[in-house]
């Protein structure tokens, strides 16, 4: 199971703050992103950053482990 998190403007466009994707062996971040971007295109138009288990990831070829928490995030606007 992969837990997917959305926040702020991405969550608003997706219509939810989180969802669960079934884990399958060999699943990579790029594939997860592509699948979700197809389902939530307006939300993913805002996505600039991806984090896995709370750490920002730049290499989308990274394989995902079962139980991972993946956040797809818009550009930050705190401060």
């Amino acid at each position, binding site marked *: 199971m992969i837990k997917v998190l959305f926040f*702020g403007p991405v969550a608003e466009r997706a219509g939810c703050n989180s969802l669960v994707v079934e884990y399958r062996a060999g699943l990579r971040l790029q594939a997860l992103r592509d699948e979700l971007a197809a389902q939530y295109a307006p939300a993913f138009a805002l996505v600039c950053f991806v*984090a896995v288990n*709370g750490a920002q990831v730049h290499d989308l070829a990274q394989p995902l482990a079962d139980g991972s928490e993946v956040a797809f995030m818009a550009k*930050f606007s*705190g*401060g």
Partner: protein
Amino acid sequence: MSAAVRIQIEDFSQDDEIDAMRGSSKRIGGIATFLGCARDFSEGREVSEISFEAYGSMALAEMNALRSEAIEKFALIDARIVHRIGTVKGGDNIVFIAAGAEHRAAAFDACRWLIDELKARVPIWKKEITPEGDSWVVPHP
């Protein structure tokens, strides 16, 4: 004493934060601070409230990493970072940064670096609530 890095709904006291820093060491010769507050006007329209949402665990970890990096990079003696989440009104406090060093130059440089890095690296988003409706803020480059 409260933690040096915090994300909280409630307001903070600049005096309390500075007192906590001064209590941490008597080697500090200069403290530079930054206070970010809510504007009631943005992009040509009135703003009645601003709502902040954070990826809490990642935001706190990143703010702690920023503090450690600033202490190392600028040879600070201490640093404190507090950011509010939830809803604030125009004029309310949003974020406070204090950088304490032996001398002023490092304190000023570190304070500027910390707020710039916080804006770029900490997963917090703000939504402006206006009489015409709500909108998430798209950051300036």
